[in-house]
């Protein structure tokens, strides 16, 4: 736990040392929505389309975040240094997944209001609590899978393909569930109740992969 905190702290330091990331992400999300506006050529979106837009934005940010999180470890020997320390391997999983989760969460804190302001037809207020729940679950999934897969990619050294090729397909179920769960919330007639089925699937997905990640992570880091 303390180890995970140390790693997390180091990552956040690396990432945020000048707080230039946050404004950058704010700009980035606004730009993204401007792009969707022009791309879809609609002044507003709602329902499933809105859900799709949000999910894809999330996915894109996730990939960027994953790249960023593990590059320093790989290029600068951070993994070796970590492996030399007398600490629990899973701390790395915990720390990296948390960092990724935070990255996504911060992005959403900025991007979702921007989305509401710029692109979303229906008001953002009513569906917000449910939306937060869904997004949190989705972030968790992306964070766990992203960490697992990048660790795999870093450690195999011959890091060919592995990262995205395994990671993205693995994420598809979670992403579909996310889009489906969000869709009804953003309907033009006001939010429908949260679709429990999709939420459940998402939660199940998170739990399963968190357990799997925890179980296999140690082996990934050895050798």
């Amino acid at each position, binding site marked *: 736990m303390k180890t995970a905190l140390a790693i997390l702290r180091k990552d956040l330091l690396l990432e945020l040392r000048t707080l230039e990331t946050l404004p950058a992400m704010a700009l980035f999300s606004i730009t993204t929505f401007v792009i969707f506006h022009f791309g879809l050529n609609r002044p507003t979106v709602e329902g499933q389309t809105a859900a799709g837009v949000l999910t894809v934005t999330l996915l894109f940010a996730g990939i960027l975040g994953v790249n960023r999180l593990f590059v320093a470890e790989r290029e*600068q020997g951070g993994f070796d*240094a970590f492996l030399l320390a007398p600490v629990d391997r899973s701390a790395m999983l915990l720390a990296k997944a948390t960092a990724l989760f935070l990255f996504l969460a911060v992005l959403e804190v900025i991007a979702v209001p921007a989305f509401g302001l710029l692109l979303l037809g229906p008001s953002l207020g009513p569906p917000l609590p449910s939306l937060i729940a869904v997004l949190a679950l989705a972030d968790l999934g992306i964070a766990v899978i992203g960490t697992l897969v990048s660790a795999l990619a870093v450690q195999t050294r011959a890091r060919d393909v592995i990262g995205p090729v395994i990671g993205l397909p693995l994420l598809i179920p979670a992403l579909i569930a996310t889009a489906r769960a969000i869709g009804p919330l953003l309907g033009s007639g006001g939010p429908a109740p949260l679709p429990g089925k999709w939420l459940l699937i998402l939660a199940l997905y998170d739990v399963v992969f968190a357990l799997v990640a925890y179980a296999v992570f140690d082996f990934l880091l050895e050798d």
Partner: protein
Amino acid sequence: MVDTPAIELRGVARFFGERIALRNISVIVPAGATLAVLGRNGAGKSTLLRVLATLLRQHAGEVSLLGEPLPQRAFAVRGRLGLLAHEPLLYRDLSGRENLRYHARLHGVSAERVEDLLREVGMERRGDEPVRLLSRGMVQRVAVCRAVLHDPEILLLDEARANLDPGASELVEPLLGRASGRTRVITSHDPQAALAEADFALGLRDGRPTFSLPADQVTPEHVRELYA
């Protein structure tokens, strides 16, 4: 009880695919002694050090460090050994101080130790610059701090003094040198200098041992043969 040696290798082998990086390595280093590993480029010196550092597993043979067999009880010896490899293992975008603080936290070492070490290697005033902007020798100084941060019992030094100026070499002597009292495994491409500070010597050639002797029994003939 008989003193357990700090390092004991018996018939150790390690492959990379088909390539033999280490083969049939047996050596014993008593606590506090220094082993010099010599050999040509690609002989397997760094690989041996990485096996000892628990970063690589051997594919055959037995390794035990401080009485604990590897890789099974690797977790028990981590934190009791320090590695200074070819790469400094520092984050280039963090400052030396931040890097060391991070490692201090990982190893459960106090922040004062970081300051002490930085002072000892003469980097206290440059400690807040990103490692990327430091000169190569300064980076190496910080890397030395990283390796000895947790006061390890075993030190694995892979050409540790490369890039250090003569003054810095002296500064790090109490940390890395024989006087540190640590069990050490060192590699160097200056066989004379290495033998002078070693108690035992292991000659490697294409991953196989050519000699494994007390340092004072290594003859120039041995050395010549090793590099021929």
